[in-house]
C-alpha cells in the first residue's frame, strides 16, 4: 500500500509543500514534483555527485537522501544560483568562461559543491580544492578546467569582500 507524507521545505528561497511517496529519494522529489532537472540522476548510489544539492549549508547527494527527511530543511539547487532575471551566477559564468563543461551532466553537481564551500569567502589550496571536489566524477574534462573555474570564483569573491 502506498504511503505518503506531507513534506514542507524551502527550495531555492521559496516555501514549498507536496505530498510525497515515502519511497522517493530527494532527487525524485526535486525532479518530479518541482521540475528541478539540474538535479541529475547519475549513479543513484552516492558515488558520482551529479545529484548534489545544498541542504542547510552543506552539500549532499540527493539520490541517497530520503525525500521525507527534507521536511523543514532549506534546499538549494543549481536553479537557485541563477539570478532572478535569468543571468548566470559567478560560478556558472566561470564554468562557461573556463570551458569547464563538455557534456554538462556533472556540471550542476560541481557548481553546487563549489557554492557550498565558497560561501564563506575562504581561500583554499589546490590540494584542499581537489579534496573538496573529490565527490564528483567528470568523464569529459579531465577536471583541470573545473578546478580553474572554481579557483577563479574563489579569488574574485575574496577580492570583492
Amino acid at each position: 500500500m502506498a504511503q505518503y507524507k506531507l513534506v514542507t521545505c524551502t527550495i531555492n528561497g521559496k516555501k514549498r509543500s507536496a505530498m510525497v511517496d515515502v519511497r522517493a529519494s530527494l532527487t525524485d522529489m526535486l525532479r518530479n514534483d518541482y521540475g528541478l532537472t539540474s538535479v541529475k540522476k547519475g549513479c543513484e548510489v552516492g558515488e558520482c555527485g551529479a545529484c548534489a544539492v545544498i541542504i542547510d549549508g552543506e552539500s549532499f547527494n540527493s539520490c541517497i537522501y530520503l525525500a521525507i527527511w527534507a521536511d523543514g530543511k532549506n534546499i538549494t539547487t543549481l536553479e537557485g544560483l541563477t539570478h532572478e532575471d535569468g543571468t548566470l551566477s559567478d560560478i556558472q559564468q566561470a564554468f562557461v568562461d573556463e570551458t569547464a563543461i563538455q557534456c554538462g551532466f556533472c556540471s550542476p553537481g560541481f557548481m553546487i559543491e563549489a557554492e557550498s564551500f565558497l560561501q564563506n569567502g575562504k581561500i583554499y589550496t589546490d590540494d584542499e580544492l581537489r579534496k573538496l571536489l573529490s565527490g564528483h566524477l567528470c568523464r569529459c574534462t579531465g577536471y583541470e578546467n573545473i578546478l580553474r573555474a572554481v579557483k577563479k570564483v574563489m579569488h574574485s569573491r575574496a577580492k570583492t569582500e
Partner: protein
Amino acid sequence: MYDVEAIYEAKTVAEAIKLRQEHPKAVIIAGGSDVLIKIREGKLAGCELISIYGVDEIRGVKLEDDGTLRIGSLTSFSHITKNELIQKYINVLGEAVDKVGGPQIRAIGTIGGNTCNGVTSADSASTLMAWDAIIELTGPEGVRRVPIEKFYLGAGKVDIHEGEIQTGVLIPKTSYENCKGHYIKYGMRNAMEIATTGCSVNVRLSPDKKIVERLRIGYGVAAPVPIRAHKTEEKFNSAPVSMQTAEGISKAVLEDVNPRDSWRASKDMRLHLCSEMAKRAFIEAVRLCGGEI
C-alpha cells in the same frame, strides 16, 4: 523510488524503541549511505525501514560532567571533523572520518551507522577501538554500555538487542587524557575509496617524553572485525621512546593481525601494510605527544 515496504519515522529515542518493538524485522536507517545502497543493489529490497535520522537528541558532541566525551550516534562525519571538542581531545578521530568516501558522503554518514554496520573497513572503527570507546545502546530495559571490542560479534554482526538503538559513542577521560594518536588509511585512491587496511595508533608518554606509558593500536581490515593489537601493546608498554621500539612494534604486530586475501589486496600485501603502518603511525603519535625519535 526505493524498493521498500514501509518507512516508520522516529523523532525521539523513545519513539525509535517503540518502533523497534513493533517492527522487529525492520532495518534501522540512520544516514542511509549503506542501507539505501543495499536496497538499490537488491540485497535489502522490499524491507521495512525505521528511520532514526530525525532523532536530533542523539546528534552532536559534548563533554559530560565526569569528563566523558559523548558523540551522539547520529553525528555526521563532517560534523565530527569540524567539532572543537573532537579536535582538542581525540584529534585522530576527526582525521580518520575525514577519509571516508567524499564530502557529500561525510555529510550524511553517521558514526553510529559506521559502527553498527559491523564492517572491518569502517574508517572510524580502528580509532574507536584504539581509544577504548564505549558503545551506548538504549532499549526498552534502559541503557546498556558495551566496550567496542565486545560490540563487534563477527563480520557484519554487532551486539544490538531487539528493541535497542545505538544512542552514543563514549570516550572516557582516562582514555583521551594526555593522549595523541594518528590514523593511516591505505587505499588505491585518495577519495571515494574503502580502506585496503587502516591502522590507528595512540600513545601516552611519561612526563619527560622518554617512556611510552601506554600504547594502543587498532586495525581495520586486518581481521574479519576491527581489532586491537593486544600482544604488541603489552610488550611495548613502558618501552623507551626510540626507533628500536618503533621497529619492534612493526615486527610484533604480525602476531596480532590476521588479514585475508581479497580482490582488493593479497594477505601478504596487507601483512606488509599492517607492519609498516604501525611503525609510521607510532612515530607520528609520539611526535604529536611531544616526543622525539
